[in-house]
């Protein structure tokens, strides 16, 4: 049942039926990131102190590479979603708001692709 007036229906504003999607994915990625953080800490610790070959061997092992790839996808997605909320809260003007959200999404997509390709290169070395 649609209670809107014909005029408001034509204007097409109102619910896009996707209001909970953003909120929900923020939680899904958050839950995924709780265990995956363990692999990030491991990776950081190794790559800042361990010899080259040790870090490559660790990252190229099946469990580590899968978990780091999963961490990259979840973390960069979570970051883009989170920054979007921050921008929506503090940037009032419509134009700058939309442009900065686009910029953030594209930047994090780009960063995630860079990180994923790096993992694939390391896996092919190791």
């Amino acid at each position: 049942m649609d209670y809107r007036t014909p005029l408001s229906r034509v204007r097409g504003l109102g619910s896009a039926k996707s209001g909970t999607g953003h909120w929900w994915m923020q939680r899904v990625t958050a839950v995924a990131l709780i265990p995956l953080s363990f692999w990030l800490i491991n990776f950081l610790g190794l790559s800042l102190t361990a010899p080259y070959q040790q870090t490559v061997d660790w990252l190229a092992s099946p469990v580590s590479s899968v978990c780091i790839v999963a961490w990259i996808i979840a973390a960069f997605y979570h970051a883009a979603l989170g920054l979007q909320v921050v921008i929506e809260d503090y940037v009032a003007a419509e134009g700058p708001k939309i442009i900065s959200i686009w910029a953030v999404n594209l930047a994090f997509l780009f960063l995630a692709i860079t990180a994923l390709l790096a993992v694939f290169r390391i896996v092919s070395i190791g």
Partner: protein
Amino acid sequence: MAINTNRPTSPHLQVYKLPLTGIISITHRMTGVMLTAGLILFVYVISALAGGADSYAAMQALMSLWLLKLVVWGFVYALFFHLCHGIRHLIWDAGNSFELETLNRYAMIELTASLALTLMTFAWGYYGL
């Protein structure tokens, strides 16, 4: 939509003394934003590893500067704080623990846990500090 910027505003953030829960709430957001900046550092580290032994050694030399070590430790603490408070957000989302006493107790638990996890990472023997 035109926005009238010449409207009266309500008393602003700086006139209030934030309670512990309020400080933690804004810290969650600040650590979140800092962690996103840290992701750029992560991309640098993993790209250096993919680049081979030479770029890896150069990255390790750069990251051993005390200023960048401080950044890494700040990142680790921010990560654990954001994780601990994030878990509390998930508990809230499930509709639990909104009582004032619980809020303050959990706030202390979070601060302790995030510090403990950072120290555990330190004691684990990584980072060469």
